[in-house]
């Protein structure tokens, strides 16, 4: 495994672009455009193509990380970005009305990538809401006969994001 490609996905505003900025060892590329709809109440810009960053591991291996747009009208990018990926990080915003439903939607949309590789779930904004617990995520995944690590993560924290990436790599080694 000389080069790895991972993908980060999840709902709009969950923190994908933020996560890639926090993680990347090279200046990240973002394709954010000004928000002109309800999302502008939450934030000023949104990803319309992809985010890109690179993490260089201790052994010199480069991990290329792509972030997807979160909004569904950009789903044409999802397939393009998923192509050739070796693993998926799904970020879930714990403060949204139905985080498990959000998780389901991204699991369904990246079904093929998940089946062929592996995935981990990062739960963000746990500082804003603890209505849904990590155990709830595990029970939900179990009900869908899926297993993967679920980790609380703040996308602004490099440390948290590295932990997610490590969990993903451990998953892939087991598989």
């Amino acid at each position: 495994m000389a080069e790895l490609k991972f993908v980060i996905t999840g709902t709009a505003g969950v923190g994908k672009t933020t996560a890639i900025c926090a993680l990347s060892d090279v200046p990240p590329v973002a394709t954010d455009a000004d928000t002109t709809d309800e999302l502008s109440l939450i934030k000023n810009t949104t990803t319309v193509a992809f985010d890109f960053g690179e993490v260089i591991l201790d052994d010199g291996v480069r991990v290329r990380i792509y972030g997807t747009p979160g909004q569904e009208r950009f789903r044409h990018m999802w397939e393009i970005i998923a192509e050739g990926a070796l693993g998926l990080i799904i970020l879930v915003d714990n403060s949204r009305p139905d985080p498990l439903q959000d998780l389901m939607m991204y699991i369904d949309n990246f079904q093929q990538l998940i089946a062929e590789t592996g995935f981990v779930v990062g739960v963000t904004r746990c500082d804003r809401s603890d209505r849904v617990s990590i155990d709830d995520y595990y029970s939900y995944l179990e009900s869908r006969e899926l297993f993967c690590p679920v980790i609380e993560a703040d996308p602004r924290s490099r440390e948290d994001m590295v932990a997610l990436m490590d969990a993903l790599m451990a998953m892939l080694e087991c598989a």
Partner: protein
Amino acid sequence: MLAEKEENSIKRSVVDQNLKELISSVDSIYAVVLSSIDGHPIARQAQDNFEDSKLAAMTSSCLALGEKIAMEANQNGCDFVIIQNQDGFLALKRVGRKLVLTTLADKSINMGMLLSATRQAAEKLYQEIT
């Protein structure tokens, strides 16, 4: 509130007028779409039935990529993103911070015509609505 509504409807008619002028300025131009920079369709003029919601989202991705690639290549001031095909052309041009104008033409068009018509419309739109 009422004032805002009125202003919006004036802008709407200005937008429609500009798009009409653009599509009728050159025969080979068969559709024009104005969309928001984050991928929502706003207005369109087309010779036939024309579905623009997916196109609006895709042009937003494409323009952002074109602009980023230009920057990566140290070329400033991305002016157009052009997609040239066997069957025709699409020209994408940013209008101010929040809008994208997309012109679709069949293959008989002269590229210079396509670009200058699109540029004129984009500049006029920019002056009249922002």
